[in-house]
């Protein structure tokens, strides 16, 4: 019998995805709560974004059945194309805008900035 739905996603798969998602959400929440007082470093940002990305992959696999639909290969190709576009869009925007920000500050601000960031 040929499958018509995008998923032979079963109850077990949904349950696993649900439990893992809750665990990751609560973990991210607790990490954020523990760092309310201190200043946030890049490690914390990366940790939280990493948890979000993990949860995205889990939901894609266990909820959306990525790679198990009627056209798994095409689905994946479009998905990875989207990832490429989104990466260029987001990383490119941030890169350009922070660069601009750096270049277009006034001399007094720049001195202040250099003092703070680079210890000059």
């Amino acid at each position: 019998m040929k499958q018509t739905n995008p998923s032979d996603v079963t109850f077990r798969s949904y349950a696993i995805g649900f439990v893992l998602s809750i665990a990751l959400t609560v973990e991210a929440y607790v990490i954020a709560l523990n760092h309310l007082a201190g200043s946030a470093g890049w490690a914390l940002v990366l940790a939280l974004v990493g948890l979000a990305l993990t949860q995205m992959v889990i939901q894609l696999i266990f909820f959306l059945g990525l790679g198990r639909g009627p056209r798994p290969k095409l689905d994946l190709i479009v998905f990875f194309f989207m990832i490429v576009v989104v990466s260029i869009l987001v990383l490119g925007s941030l890169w350009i805008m922070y660069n601009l920000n750096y270049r277009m500050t006034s001399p007094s601000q720049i001195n202040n900035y250099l003092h703070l960031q680079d210890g000059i």
Partner: protein
Amino acid sequence: MSQALEIEEPNQVASDSKTIFGFWVYIMTDCVLFASLFATYAVLHNNTFGGPSGRQLFSLPFVLTETLILLTSSFSCGLGLLAAHKGEKAKVMAWFGLTFLLGLAFLTLELTEFKHLVSQGDSWRESGFLSAFFTLVGTHGLHIATGLCWMSVMIFQVSRRGLVAANVRRLTLLSMFWHFLDIIWIFIFTIVYLLGVVQP
């Protein structure tokens, strides 16, 4: 295997898989839309123009509640789809009914937060940060509202015509849409709220 699937023609199966693939492509393009809003938010989130930043505005327990409600609705929507593939109409109605209520609760909470912000003078007009925030979260809320309209139509359709092949296909697309909205919300939860509160 369910009866609904057995009586389908091969043509029907082929066109269903085409529809599902097409909808998948739509979802991927919607991801690009949200990515551009996220990029805007990331660029503008420090531009508070002397106004409040995320740290002063956001309440984490409130947002965690929203997140868990939406996550549960995503789960119940999946269970509804499973029931649809097994041809169990009563269960489909129950699970999608529950999903609808949870989605409505989520939307109500989101609008409550917006109303609270606007009423204390922190509307989208105050700063670049707030404009980006309202655009990003508001666009997600608009998607949720659209999904809720679609879901109420589907519940009505299933109650009138039962689980015919066309309805099962539509429920499949609807649940894909709903799972997608939950995935977008994970990023709003992390990037806007958690990082917004953690970063000074």
